């Protein structure tokens, strides 16, 4: 009696060209290539792990959950902002090397790690929390219909990975622009029927607010959560023209 043995899983070699930068040694970033043996089910993050664990322990990158929800490992993969943990290597063209570099527009700290502080600063400035001064009617809850909840459902999906903001050409050249992610998170409260503040509309009507958006759609293309970012920005523009949100 013969027992069927599973056939060996096919592996393939891919070349990753990674933009390295060590602030203690380098004055300019440099490209370095690595060959790794990968499985068809592997992601770019697995390739980075293999390099860090088996070839060069100094390779520096951020990752936390590794399942597309913490938003730590946004990076530029073949020129497009992607989460390394959601990008399957077999979906890329593996006959060519895979270029991996840090997201653009934020200060480079080391290898694939950037300083996220300017990004979070503009996130804080749009006041991404419920502002309601009135007492809820009858009872303790602020009731909301399913339709009212659906109005801002798309923008609740943001994981603050900065893929959108760091894909925006306006953000690259204008360091003061709030950026798509901050506007998405403002949209989430501007269109929330329970929120009573117009302060975010005032903040985003600013010189560096929504009017900087040139509708290039890079942000919508980059978002790993599929948020219609450009549409959300357009809706905030209209809310500012109307003078009110929800």
């Amino acid at each position: 009696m013969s027992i069927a043995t599973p056939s060996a899983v096919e592996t393939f070699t891919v070349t990753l060209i990674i933009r390295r930068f060590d602030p203690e040694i380098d004055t300019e970033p440099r490209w370095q290539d690595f060959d790794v043996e990968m499985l068809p089910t592997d992601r770019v993050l697995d390739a980075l792990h293999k390099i860090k664990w088996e070839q060069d322990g100094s390779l520096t990158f951020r990752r936390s959950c590794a399942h597309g929800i913490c938003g730590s490992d946004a990076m530029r993969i073949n020129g497009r902002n992607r989460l390394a943990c959601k990008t399957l290597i077999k979906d890329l063209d593996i006959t060519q090397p895979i270029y991996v570099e840090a997201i653009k527009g934020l200060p480079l700290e080391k290898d694939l790690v950037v300083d996220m502080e300017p990004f979070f600063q503009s996130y804080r400035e749009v006041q991404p929390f419920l502002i309601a001064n009135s007492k809820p009617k009858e009872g303790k809850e602020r009731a909301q219909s399913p339709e009212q909840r659906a109005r801002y459902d798309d923008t609740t999906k943001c994981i603050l990975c900065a893929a959108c903001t760091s894909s925006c050409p306006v953000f690259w050249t204008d360091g003061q622009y709030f950026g798509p992610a901050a506007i998405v998170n403002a949209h989430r409260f501007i269109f929330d029927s329970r929120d009573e503040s117009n302060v975010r509309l005032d903040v985003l009507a600013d010189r560096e607010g929504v009017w900087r958006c040139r509708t290039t759609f890079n942000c919508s293309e980059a978002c790993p959560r599929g948020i219609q970012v450009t549409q959300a920005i357009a809706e905030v523009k209209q809310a500012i023209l109307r003078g009110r949100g929800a």
Partner: protein
Amino acid sequence: MSVTIDSPRAPRRTGGVNWEKWGWLYMRVSGALLVVLIFGHLIVNLVVGEGVKAIDFAFVAGKYASPFWMIWDFAMLWLALIHGANGMRTLVNDYAANPTVNKVLKFALAGSTAVLLLLGTLVIFTFDPCPAGASADLLPSFCPVP
């Protein structure tokens, strides 16, 4: 003494004209109007009647004899020039990080726009194909012989 701030983290902008907002709105409104104006202009000049072959000095003179086309071209001139200049201003803001360069470029932009607007408006409203006192060999054939 109270330690409560009335409106914590109030926005930086308080009153005044929001030029960015009106500039953005201007681009949309003028853009929509320009689609009508420019396509109307192209159809009348290049398609209707004999088409492009009909264009000569007399054709232009004939158009500027009508207040309708004077207003049409006047609207096209102002809407398009300011639309273009505002777009250029955006480019300057994007790429001229040095404040001095930024100022100089915007100043040059505003100046050239103003001159072109003034000259264009002057031509539209003072155009005379047969100015009195000009020598006959410089005048087009349709002018009355003095």
